[in-house]
Each structure stands twice: as structure tokens, then as C-alpha cells.
């Protein structure tokens, strides 16, 4: 089953955040469909729309892998299914 999810990264800016996160995504066959990234007052914020095949990797498994890389990079990563934002912000 194909699923779309919103991934956010927040933390102190440093070299290699985009690389570190996208490496995990690529290794698990998760596609980046859209990306927006800014530095706000020295803080790195990135929002990605990703699509994945849940038969290959589940949301929980991906979340666990992202938690690991978040720890290495010293940032906070969240992953939520796209529907939660659609439901909340669109009628």
C-alpha cells in the first residue's frame, strides 16, 4: 500500500542534515516528492512530503530509523501520515 507522509526536521543548523535524512529515506526506498527548507534564527527547519510503500517499510520502522539518525544529528524528526494534515486543515 502506497502512503504519503509529512516529515519534519527541526534543530540547530549543521553540515549534513539533509544528507543524513535523505540517506535513510533512499536506503528504504522512500521517495521525496516535495521539500521546503529554511534557516530561522540559526535553526534548521525542513518539511518533506515523502511517499513510501508500506509493504516494504512500515511507518513504525521508518520512524525508528529516523529516530536513530535524529540522535546522531542532534535534531528532532517527526513523521506523520499526510491525512492528519488534510483532515485538520482542509474541508
Amino acid at each position, binding site marked *: 500500500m502506497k502512503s504519503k507522509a509529512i516529515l*519534519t526536521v527541526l534543530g540547530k543548523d549543521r553540515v549534513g542534515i539533509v544528507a543524513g535524512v535523505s540517506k535513510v529515506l533512499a536506503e528504504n526506498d522512500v521517495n521525496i516528492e516535495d521539500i521546503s527548507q529554511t534557516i530561522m534564527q540559526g535553526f534548521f527547519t525542513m518539511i518533506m*512530503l515523502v511517499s513510501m510503500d508500506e509493504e516494504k517499510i512500515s511507518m*513504525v520502522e521508518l520512524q525508528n530509523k529516523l529516530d536513530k539518525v535524529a540522535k546522531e544529528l542532534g535534531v528532532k524528526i*517527526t513523521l506523520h*501520515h499526510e*491525512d*492528519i*494534515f488534510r*483532515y485538520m*486543515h482542509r474541508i
Partner: protein
Amino acid sequence: MLINPDEIRETISMIQEQKLDIRTITMGISLRDCVDASGDRLQKNIYRKVVESARNLIDVAESLQSKYGIPIVNKRVAVSPISVIAESSDLENYIPVAQALDKAAIDIGIDFIGGFSALVHKGSTRGDVCLIDSIPEALAKTERVCSSVNVASTKAGINMDAILRMAEVIKKTAELSKEQDGIGCTKLVVFANIPEDNPFMAGAYHGFGEPDKVINVGISGPGVVRAVLEKHPGVDLTRVAELIKQTAFKITRMGELVGRESAALLGAKPGVVDLSLAPTPTPGDSVAQIIEAMGIEKCGGPGSTAALAIINDAVKKGGAMATSSAGGLSGAFIPVSEDLAMAEAVASGALSIEKLEAMTAVCSVGLDMIVIPGDTPVETIAGIIADQMAIAVINHKAAGVRLIPAPGKKAGDRAVFGGLLGSAPVMPISNLSCKNFIKRGGRIPAPLTSLNN
């Protein structure tokens, strides 16, 4: 991106900073097909039906929690009123039925199971009497069973004999759990106009108009409402109502999404979304703090009832737009021990039981989680319940009373229950007697519903 970054950030901060969560997924299960003349078989039937129906409740809730990244705090079950289901059995008391429910709840890993209940607003049958007599011991011998008794309705009036009996049951229940400040009473609620689809404990039961299995969802998020109001300190009250309405809409959509999907995964009918602002003892997760954010110095001060009325109405308006299946209690909850700022307001003397009673006229529950002195006379407890039932019956609303007469404690002492139940100071109660009023018994007739003045 289809959803803009600000909206994404808003949702994430609601969940991470403002404690937005799905407060409960409650599966309603009909036990009508469990009835048996043999008490043994009845207990086996009930255990089997609950376990078979709700076996996957925890797994499904956890998978949705990971998928959407939103905490689902409680997973519960509500069953048909045991007073009816056990009535034709040969059991002399219903404590073994409570134990069967408790075992089922423990085995499937849910937090609470509700429905050790009776509906006696007009009168009692043998099963009702037997159930009510069993309540104190049933709650003492079980861990997760919740009990509710409906003693009044707008259509039938107020059963004063049942209220006096329930006051005795409350006292007895407190005594049987005196080592924990009467914690048994936190699992017991006396209701007027009890909803058939309420997912919140202790008053959840599975009504007779409900399908075999149904999923009702209770959402929460007082912290989100407070954060929105704090961002707009100077706006007028029309705008305040609008902001609460918009926030309630967003919160309820989340409940709608999770409710529909969990029902489908569990093979149950999607039931209602209960759009209630239910506080917890976590700092910030408080309805009293919303009232304070609106400009009242301390919850309980003048203006508190008006502020609560705005919140309650706006929550319903926003929620009703977000789901076509609003139900349950829907509104704002004001449980004292479960709301840190509410308990603080009591401790500082700002909030009295009389003011709380006035506030219950405009919100969705009644006098909830209120600790009173252990030596409060039974008739006084009955009087407090009767007052609350009258407010509910006349105003066509649901109301539950959860009083805890903490054994050995006096006004100003503190009762501690722990976890989501929190802790609260013991509230002073009027010494004036209502004994002669209560002793009259009988039924207060149903109110006229025209000539509304």
C-alpha cells in the same frame, strides 16, 4: 506542497507542545447475547464476548498512534448495563460479573471497562437493586471496572429514593478503599440523562439503541485552546468564541479520522466523536487555565460561569461542523482532581462547591471528582446529588456526579489518587441539614417543557 508549512507546524506544535491527544478509543459491546439462567455460563459468555470483540483494540490503537503520530491515551470498553444482562441469572449478587469484566479488561490490556450500570430514573427492578447493592464490593474487588447509575431524566423526573441509596453506596465504596483516600468512588458516577454513547469513564455504558459493536472516540486538547487564546490577549469575546470554535474544529477532525479508521480495522460500526475538552493533571492541560487565559484572575472568580459557557458552546459549534456524528458528553469537563489549575483554585479558596455547581449548569458534566470530608452525612451527599440532578433535568442536559468522601479526611486535607486521577484538597461542605427533605423520598415529577422562563 498541498498543505502549507505553517499549517504543518501548527499541527505538530499542537501535538508536541500543547498536549493534543486522542483521549480515548472506547469500544461499545452489546452483551445482550450473553444472557443465561446460569450465573457461571453468564460470566463465561461475557468474558468471551468482550475478549473476542476487543482483542485487537490495543494493537489497532497503537498502529494508528504511530501512523498519525498522535498519542492515543486510553483504550476502553463499554458494555450493556449489567443490571439488565444479569437479571435473569441465578446470581444473588453481581460481584462475580464485575470480576469477569475485570479479568477480560486485564487480559486484553485495556485501561477501564464501563457498564457495571443500572438505569433507575423511574424505579428499580430486581436486577437494578442487586447491581446497586453489589457496587461497593465490586469496585473494591476489581481494578478496572467502572460503574454508573442513572437516577434522573428530563422525561421521567428525579428518583429521590435511588439518590439516597446511591449516597449510601458512595459512602460504603469510599470506606472499602479507605487506604487510598476512597479511590473506589473515582470509578462510580451518578447520572442524569446519561448518554448511551459516551466514551469517557466512569459513565461509559453501551446503550440499547446501539449496534452490536461500535467505536466511540473522545478527543481532548484544553492546552491547544489555551495556547490560541494566549496568542490573542486583547480580542473581544465574539472573537474569543470564534477562535475556540476554529480550534475545536481542528481537534475534532483528528478524532473523526482516527474513529473512522479504527472502527473499520476492528470490524465495528463507527460511533460518535465526543468533542470534549478533558483536562489531565499534566501542567497546561487544563480547562481552568483556559478560563484564566480569558481574563479571570483565578478559576471560580466572578465571570467564571460566563467564560465556561463561551467555551462549552464554541466547542460544540466547532465540533459539530467537523463531524456529523458528534455525541457522548461533548463540551468542557471540570473535574477538580484531574485538572491541576482547578485543584489549585480550590486550595486557594477561589473555587467553592457552590460555584462549581453554578458552572455545571453551562458545561457538559456535573460535580466531578470532588473530594468532600469523610464524615459528610449520607443525607447531605444525597442533597448535593439531588441539586445537580435538578439542574440537569430542568436544563435538558446530561450531568454526572462523582463525589469522593475521603475517609478520615477533613476540609483542607489533601486526597491523592495518582495518575490521570490526580489529587485534590478536600472541599468544605455546608453543615446545614437537608435530612428531612431527603427522608421524604419519592420521585420529583418530570418538568414541563413549555412556558420556558
